[in-house]
């Protein structure tokens, strides 16, 4: 009966490095979302998965960002050549089937700091 979990909870890396952030959605939820929350801002949409496929990746800021969900459950957000501006809290959410009336349940987030 666990909620959405995300690992690691904190990640410190150096500029130019590669990072992977993991999201484990609520069991059985087919829809999974990634958002990014910068200091003093609300969450901003990055990418949405329906099952294994990315249904909407219009929020990814550039081609350094990529996400996968190979088995339709766990998702990994990958950031190449990290920049200081990538520092933020990365949030994952899931919903039962992605319908517009469904509640999205959020995880605790991964706080990424790029030095």
């Amino acid at each position: 009966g666990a909620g959405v979990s995300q690992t690691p909870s904190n990640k410190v890396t150096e500029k130019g490095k590669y990072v992977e952030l993991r999201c484990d959605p609520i069991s059985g939820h087919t829809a999974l979302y990634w958002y990014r929350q910068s200091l003093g801002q609300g969450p901003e949409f990055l990418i949405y998965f329906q099952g294994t496929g990315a249904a909407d990746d219009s929020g990814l800021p550039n081609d350094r960002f990529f996400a996968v969900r190979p088995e339709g459950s766990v998702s990994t957000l990958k950031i190449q050549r990290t920049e200081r501006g990538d520092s933020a809290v990365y949030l994952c959410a899931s919903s039962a089937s992605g319908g517009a009336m469904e509640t999205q349940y959020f995880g605790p987030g991964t706080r990424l700091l790029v030095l």
Partner: protein
Amino acid sequence: AQSVSQHNHHVILSEAASLELGCNYSYGGTVNLFWYVQYPGQHLQLLLKYFSGDPLVKGIKGFEAEFIKSKFSFNLRKPSVQWSDTAEYFCATQTSGNTPLVFGKGTRLSVIA
């Protein structure tokens, strides 16, 4: 494109005071509307949501919100706040058929004894 404006960055209230947090959205079509709350050290959780029907929506913990279509607004209210309501509150919209949420910048509420 959708956008959401939350007018108050930080609100400070005494316990038992009434609360109203403003939220305006820009999208001219049909929208679904949400208020999420983030208590200190916790993750975002849903307070209430509106899709259709009665424009006055009641949520958890005594919160309610009113959708006023003519004003593009969805303000959050609570008649009497408690210290435990100290949190950050986010308004969000979702266009029909497009499920990612668009959030406002949030309003930090501090309730003092």
